[in-house]
Structure formats: C-alpha cells, structure tokens
C-alpha cells in the first residue's frame, strides 16, 4: 500500500505502470500457488491414502512368517539394512587393517618375503546387491542397445531385410527371460572358459539374459522410426546422392530419435524387470538373489526386508526411466517436443 501512495504523487503515467506491475505480480502468483499445490498436494494425498490403506491391510494379514509388514516395519527395516551394511564395511576395514599390520610385521623381519593381500569374503549386503544389479542391468542394456540400434536402422532402411527378419523378431519378442535362462547358463558355462575370467560367469549369464529380452522394443521402434522417414527427405537424400553412412548419420538417425528413445525406455524397463527375475531364479548376485535369500531365510524380519527390496526396485526402475528421459531431452533436436 505504501508503494501505491508514493506512486500517487508521481505522474499518472508512472502510476499506471506501477499499478500494472502490481497487478502483474499479484495475479500470476496466486495462479502459481494453486499450480504448485496441484503439482504437490495431489500426489501427496495419493501417497498418504496408499500408506494408510497399506497399514490397515497389513495389520489384517497374518502369514507363517508373522504379520505382513506395514509402512512402520518397512521404515524400520530400511535402517536395519543400512546398519547391516555399515557393520559389514567396518568388518572389512578391520580385516584389511589386520592383514596390512601382519604383512608389515613380516616385511620388517624379512624384507625379501612375499606378502599377499586376501580379499574380504564376507556376505554381500543389501547395498552391495543394489550395486551389482545396477551394473548388470546397465551392461545388459548397453549390449542390447549396441545390437538393436544398428540392426534396427538396417532393417528400417531395407525392406527386404525387414521382410526376412520380421518373423524372427515376432517369434522371439514374447519369450520370457526364464525360458532363456537355462540355455544361456549352459552355453555360458560351455563357451566362457578362461583361467582368469575378467567377469564372473553369473554376471555374464545375467547380462546375456537381460540383453536377449530387452533388445526387442529398441529394435522394433528404431526400425519403425527409420522406415517412416518422409518420402520428401528420402528424395532429398537421393537427389544429393548421399553415401549410405551420410544418409544414416544425417537423416536416418536424427529422424528416428524420438521413436528410438521410446524403444530404449521400454527396453530399459524390461531389462530391469528381467534382471530381478533372472537373479532370483539363477541365484546370481543382485537384488533378485537378496529377495530369494530373505524368503528362504524365513526370519521374522524377512518380509519387511523383502518389502524394502520391492520399494527399492520400484524407485530404481523409476529413476532409470527418468534418466533416459533426461538423456532424450538432451539429445533430441526437437526441443519443443513434450517428453513423457
């Protein structure tokens, strides 16, 4: 109000601008508040309703492993798992320290002695398993992408190749990871033989299973994206007599980026789901194994811990998708496109 009264002593023109300014400041701010409320409040209400329903439902379910975990138990178990992890890290550090001391003592006695450092072989914690799963899924997804995008571009550009490969794609696309797994395990055991393996066999098995199941959406979407490039752009390329690689780089890839990313995001989602199932079935290290171990363990904490794993799997899946979305808006040439 004080600003307004000062303004009234100024010229009318000034008053008008100031009034307009205040108007401009006030109205959208109310608008913004309601928009923020909408963006924050509604999801929050949804979350609260869900937590409440979960709490009520959990209280009424009794299993042979005790009561079904509600939000409170899950909250508690989350910190329990983190504490476990820290304890395990502490043990590892102590183990290493003891070794170093012992080695130092040996070296002090006899400088020429050969000393060895042994790896700590404690049980992997929940957090270690998350790390393993993340590395595996990203490696599997990377392999799938490396196969799917070039192949998709070739199929999209070449109708003959598309006709030849399409039945195969349709045949393998719906195959469940669990069906592939025994075959992949046997093939990896038979072919991946080396004295000093760079990767564990279980890692390779998980990786290949993930790739086999997740490459299809990227492959199909890339092919569709490339094959639906407008005839006009194809004609431009023909008139210019662009060489094959220039055509791919300058026209096919940019034109199919949106379709490609749709495929990549579907693929990454599938990769993450497949990995958990594969780890569970094959007892390969990772979150799937964690869930299975807890289930077999059958302590009163087990269900709570599994529920923590379920939520973490969900959150990681969500974050992976968000990361892809971010990458898409970074790479895409069409900055106006709405990425959902």
């Amino acid at each position, binding site marked *: 109000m004080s600003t307004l009264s000062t303004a009234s002593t100024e010229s009318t023109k000034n008053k008008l601008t100031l009034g307009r300014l205040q108007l401009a400041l006030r109205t959208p701010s109310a608008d913004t508040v309601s928009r923020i409320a909408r963006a924050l409040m509604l999801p929050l209400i949804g979350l609260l309703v869900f937590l409440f329903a979960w709490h009520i439902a959990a209280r009424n379910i009794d299993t042979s492993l005790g009561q079904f975990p509600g939000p409170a138990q899950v909250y508690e178990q989350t910190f329990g798992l983190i504490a476990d992890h820290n304890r395990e890290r502490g043990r590892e550090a102590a183990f290493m320290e003891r070794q170093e001391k012992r080695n130092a003592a040996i070296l002090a006695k006899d400088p020429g002695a050969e000393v060895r450092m042994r790896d700590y072989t404690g049980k992997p914690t929940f957090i270690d398993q998350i790390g393993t799963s993340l590395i595996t899924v990203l490696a599997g997804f990377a392999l799938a992408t490396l196969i799917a995008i070039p192949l998709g571009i070739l199929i999209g550009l070449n109708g003959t190749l598309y006709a030849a490969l399409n039945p195969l794609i349709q045949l393998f696309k719906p195959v469940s990871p669990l069906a592939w797994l025994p075959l992949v395990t046997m093939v990896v055991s038979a072919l991946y033989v080396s004295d000093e393996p760079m990767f564990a066999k279980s890692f390779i098995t998980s990786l290949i299973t993930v790739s086999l199941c997740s490459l299809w959406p990227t492959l199909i979407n890339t092919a569709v994206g490339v094959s639906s490039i*407008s005839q*006009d752009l194809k*004609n*431009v390329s023909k*008139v*210019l*007599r662009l060489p094959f690689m220039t055509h791919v780089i300058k026209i096919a890839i*940019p034109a199919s980026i949106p379709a490609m990313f749709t495929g990549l995001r579907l693929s990454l989602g599938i990769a993450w789901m497949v990995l958990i199932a594969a780890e569970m079935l094959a007892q390969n290290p990772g979150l799937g194994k964690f869930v299975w171990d807890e289930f077999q363990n059958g302590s009163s904490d087990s269900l709570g811990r599994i529920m923590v794993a379920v939520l973490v799997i969900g959150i990681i899946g969500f974050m992976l998708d968000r990361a892809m979305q971010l990458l898409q808006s970074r790479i895409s*040439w*069409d900055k106006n496109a709405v990425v959902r």
Partner: protein
Amino acid sequence: MTHLELTGVAIDFPTSRGPFRALDGVNLKINQGEFVSLIGHSGCGKSTVLNLVAGLYEATEGGVVLEGKEVREPGPERAVVFQNHSLLPWLSAYENVELAVKQVFRNTKSRAEMKEWIEHNLELVHMSHALHKRPDEISGGMKQRVGIARALAMQPKILLMDEPFGALDALTRAHLQDSLMEIQARLNNTVIMITHDVDEAVLLSDRIVMMTNGPAATVGEILDIDLERPRNRIELADDVRYNHYRHEVLSFLYEKQHKPVEGDSQSAAPAQKAAKTAADAPQLAQDMHIVKSTPGETTASTAA
C-alpha cells in the same frame, strides 16, 4: 540448342487392377536458360513429369536426355525444390545448404570456399540474417527460400521446382516470385516449375506447357510468353498481352480441359459473381485467379 529433351515418355504405375498409364507420349524440348512452367489440373501428372526429369521415377517408354546423356537416377545436377521445403528439421539453414554443398563440391572446393559459397547462396535468397536458425524457427516463406538456396548451391544444370510457392500465402508468394525472377535474371538457370497458379505461370515463364487431364496425360498446348524482362507485376496487371496470355491459359484449363467433377458446384457460382468485379479491379483479384474469370470461362462453367 536443346538442353533437355523428353521423347515419347510414358509411365505406368502398378495398381491392383493392372498397370495404370499416368503419362503417355510426352514430348518436350527445353533450351538452356529457359524458364518453363507446367500447368494443369491436379492429378494430371505434372509432378510425374518433374520426378521423371529428376530421376526419381523411371519412364516405362521413351526417355529423358539432359545434355546428351540419358537420365537414369537422381543427381545434384538436377536440383529439386520441393513443395513443402523438405529441409532437414534438425539442421540450421546454413547446415541444410552445407549438406548439399559438401556433397557436390567435396573434391573441388576448399573448406573456406565452401563456407563462402554457402553464405553466398543464402545471401542470394535474402536469408543472411537467419543462417543459424532451424526450420521450425523461421516462417514458411523463409523455409522455401532456404530450399531454393540449397538447390541453387548445387549449381544444377536444371532447376526443378514442384509447386514451390503453393503452400505460401499470397503476399509471401509474390515476394518469392520476385526473388526468383531476380535470381534467374542473374544466373540464367534453366528452370522447370510446376504451378497451378495462372498468374505465376504467365509472370515467370518463357513458355507455359499446358497438360491434358489424366489418365494418359500428355502435353496439350505450349504457350510462348513474349513479354520482355524484367517483368513488373503491377505494370503487367494492366498489360493487354499479359491478360491475353492469362486468357489463353484459363481457356485451356477451363474450356478445353474442364474437369466435370471438380468444376461444377464449386466454381460456377463464384465465377459468375467475380466476373463483374474482376474487370474493375484486376489487381485485387490478382491472387484469386480461380475465382477471377473471363467471360469465356463463365459460360463454360455454367454450360457444364
């Protein structure tokens, strides 16, 4: 000297009911530096003729010869300006032209020469102020200018334009027509342009090739436009010869090649109404060429 020659060109397109003959017996000779318009009702095969010259289609019978060599595939010496600009949306104006220049001159021009050549061509179409704008950031007319610059930058033996200004509003179209005349006067390109705009055809062309209706469309009449250059659209609007040429084209399109399906219900009524006003205000009706009519056309429409 004949620059481009189409001899007995016919083309069949496969359909489910056997081959469909779109063009039949098209003969045309075009000289170096000539500006030729193809005009005809939609679906009469104008674009097919252009695509044959571009090498995007292959003739079933007969052939196209450019400077003594038969056209068998597309190539940059027959640059095309497409109707909807066909710029790559992920490249800037400069990069779109660069793609063409790099392809055509990679062995003959140095990097600096190419840059100069790209900028020169964009300058020619008055686009120097928006070199690094992408197609979605510029207007339709500007996109078409870049499309023309890209085609010119290939230094083609013949420039093929497929309704280059068809998608633009009347004022922008007039601007671009003037630009095109100016460029053509400077570079003396050989141009084939498809149009459905009678004024555009008369204003720009040395010759107008009028096509009959399909199927089996062919060249109906060829009209020599003997108007001295440079041409001015405002002066020509009152010019007796200009209006005579317009009349020739209109009477070909609406009397000799009248399309019974499209013509009747749509054009008859407005044509009658417009006939009275058209004589009083020719410049107003300039861009309403379909509505504006000659007495001959009116009778044709009402009779049919």
